[in-house]
């Protein structure tokens, strides 16, 4: 029901307002005397070497993708768990089949070494 969500919206406005006001307040009250040395990105006191925008290992992509895969499975599991008592053993078999395919992918990724972080 839409009415039940109105408090969430009000809460959202309240929270955002609080955060913005506190940031703005500190911007108004806080000191602002920038000097180039002060604004250097922190690198243990040295001058920064090279650029900070570097490329990353493709493993992060694989982790995000595995997450996506299982997130979808979880999303199917929620409505399944809610109606599980009505589906009885039939629902169990359904989900077993679904999970078998997902687990196949999981084992495949495992065997391909996508989950190994120490190289």
């Amino acid at each position, binding site marked *: 029901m839409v009415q039940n969500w109105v408090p969430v919206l009000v809460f959202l406005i309240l929270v955002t307002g609080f955060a913005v006001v506190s940031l703005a307040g500190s911007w108004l009250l806080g000191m602002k005397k920038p000097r180039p040395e002060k604004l250097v990105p922190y690198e243990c006191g040295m001058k920064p070497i090279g650029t900070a925008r570097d490329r990353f290992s493709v493993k992060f992509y694989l982790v995000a*993708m595995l997450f*996506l*895969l299982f997130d979808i499975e979880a*999303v199917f599991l929620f409505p399944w768990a809610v109606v599980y008592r009505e589906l009885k053993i039939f629902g169990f078999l359904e989900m077993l089949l679904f999970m078998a395919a997902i687990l196949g992918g999981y084992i495949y990724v495992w065997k391909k070494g996508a989950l190994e972080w120490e190289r």
Partner: protein
Amino acid sequence: MIPLNWFLTLSAVLFLIGMLGFFIKRNIIALLLSVEIMLNAVNLTFVAFSSRNGHVSGQVFVFFVLVVAAAEAAVGLALVIAMFRNRETLNVDRSNLLKW
């Protein structure tokens, strides 16, 4: 009470924006993002009709659209990574090896 037409119009506008993005943008990730806009427009239509007809099927379809979008993003971005590795560019007009 919001008329159904409003949702359909919004959906059409979003779909058009996504389509324009597909024409205008050349960066392959931007193209994928445009596709996501179009998928969302379609999702909105599904849910609007589901709500209009008081039937849950439209919403179940959105579930499947989500899965397809996830699969598309996973494979599409893997291709992006492979392409970037080989060509150091994401401009779709520059990866034209298969043309000749």
